[in-house]
């Protein structure tokens, strides 16, 4: 990948002590910005990406040459309006789009870190990204927003830095990764590890890539992002460019062909070891546990205004898990709004053109900004 020229990077000089006990020094954070920071520096929104996202939120992603992952929500006049707000998004540490991750060179060996990279957590990710505030001289963000793992980072960020954001928008997420979530992530990791090209994580020095394992991981995960109804409506039992069943194991059904395609394009843009590290960070996420089992205490110190959004057909991070966050906030009298959006597009709804969601997001942000 020719990444050098298109990636903005902040090299963090301050050492960062990770949850695993190790400390990292002089590490890069790759980021992108959209819109303009105003003179008062009160219009900045920090967006956090999900598992396979990156810093290229909207417009053309210069690396993949595809639309940014949140193009429906972020852009001129869109829900997160780039004409009004200054949007910052960073690639998470552990990622593979320029931020410090397992594909970076280990100075001790001269090879990529691979599985010698320290295990990172959601907490480590947001602590690393916090450095961007200083970089831009922003004292307080107008908002922090993100869906899925992005939402987990939102929750962790406001817990760590309670007075650094005015509004807080966790979307389709959870405060504690469930057994089912961990199970799906483990399935993906095992698929990668089962690929003989993975070489215990040392594939880059052996000049191989565990493409098959990573593709299967992506295929399995992709199913969890959709809903049964959505799949049925889009694919049903439709056959792939054939009149009848072929009595073999080619992709007879459109859904098979679709999943294979999703797997194949994913391996071109994502690193297998990053997939292991980031899914691990999600599995370790349990905000309540950080506060001795009382989630409310995570938010006690903040006066921020929360807006929590879930989707009816999201079975990966179901409404109840989002509501648990609302309940924790209400029990300490925090300012929290909540809406469950009707959609049959599953967990992926937050990334797609779901008008009720985009309208709610826009209205919440724009009205809150007026009250600034």
């Amino acid at each position, binding site marked *: 990948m020719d990444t050098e020229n298109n990636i903005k990077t902040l090299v963090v000089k301050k050492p960062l002590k990770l949850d695993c006990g190790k400390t990292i020094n002089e590490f890069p954070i790759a980021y992108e910005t959209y819109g303009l920071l105003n003179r008062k520096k009160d219009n900045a929104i920090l967006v956090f990406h999900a598992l396979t996202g990156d810093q290229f939120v909207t417009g053309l992603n210069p690396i993949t040459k595809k639309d940014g992952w949140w193009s429906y929500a972020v852009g001129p006049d869109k829900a997160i309006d780039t004409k009004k707000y200054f949007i910052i998004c960073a690639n998470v540490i552990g990622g593979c789009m320029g931020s410090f991750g397992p594909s970076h060179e280990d100075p001790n060996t001269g090879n990529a870190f691979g599985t010698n990279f320290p295990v990172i957590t959601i907490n480590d990710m947001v602590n690393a990204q916090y450095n961007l505030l200083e970089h831009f001289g922003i004292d307080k963000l107008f908002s922090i927003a993100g869906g899925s793992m992005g939402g987990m980072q939102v929750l962790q960020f406001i817990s760590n830095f309670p007075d650094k954001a005015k509004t807080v928008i966790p979307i389709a997420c959870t405060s504690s990764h469930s057994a089912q979530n961990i199970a799906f992530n483990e399935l993906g990791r095992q698929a990668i590890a089962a690929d003989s090209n993975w070489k215990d994580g040392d594939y880059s020095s052996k000049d191989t890539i565990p493409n098959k394992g990573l593709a299967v991981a992506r295929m399995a995960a992709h199913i969890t992002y959709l809903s049964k109804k959505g799949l049925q409506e889009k694919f049903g039992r439709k056959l792939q460019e054939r009149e009848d069943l072929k009595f073999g194991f080619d992709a007879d059904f459109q859904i098979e062909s679709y999943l294979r395609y999703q797997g194949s394009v994913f391996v071109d843009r994502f690193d297998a070891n990053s997939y292991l590290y980031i899914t691990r960070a999600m599995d370790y996420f349990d905000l309540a546990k950080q506060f001795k089992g009382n989630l409310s205490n995570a938010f006690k110190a903040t006066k921020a*205004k929360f*807006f929590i959004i879930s989707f009816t057909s999201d079975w990966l991070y179901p409404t109840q898990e989002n509501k648990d966050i*609302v*309940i924790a906030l*209400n*029990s*300490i*009298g925090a*300012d*929290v*709004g*909540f*809406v*469950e*959006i*009707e959609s049959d597009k599953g967990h992926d709804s937050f990334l797609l053109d779901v008008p*009720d969601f985009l*309208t*709610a997001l826009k*209205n*919440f942000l724009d*009205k*809150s900004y*007026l*009250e600034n």
Partner: protein
Amino acid sequence: MKNEFQVIAELIEKEKKVLDVGCGDGILMEFLKKNKNTNIRGMEISKSKVQECIAKGLTVIEGNAEKDLKQFPDKSFDYVVLSQTLQAFLDPELVINELLRVGKKAIVTIPNFGYWKVRFHLLIKGTMPITKTLPDEWYNTPNIHMCSIKDFFSFAKSRNIKIFKSLAINNQNVSIINHSNLTIKNFFADLGIFLIEK
């Protein structure tokens, strides 16, 4: 704004913390926020109404009062408002108890089933009453626990709920209800408004 909301707003002092249960499209919330500098929250069961509230910049939680009030701590609001919704709950008594637990005071309004037009409708026509405040047919009405102003008074008494103030609305007229005029008000009022505490 509805006369009823004017009356409710007059019962609430400035700068209080208020929860509007079944806040609908947020008209009362908006009024209280603007005119009384109220720290106001809403709960609403309809997704489209929640969206309308968000568009007005109001803090609203999508939820069902019968299940979702329990997340609020005791006495966490100065006032909890319930406007013309009590009769639609499966368990109105539970809801009243929850309102009084969550709020230091509660303001409850009810469409009065003792209103003379309601009585005459049933008496003369022999069919379920339909009025301005009760516009639905028996088969599609959300109202399953109708009561009269008199019923509410005796309910409050039997549960040791203090009624601080009770007001009757008939068209544009607002009047105070007391024990001596209860029978008359129960006949002429379309709507009853009660400020209660336990």
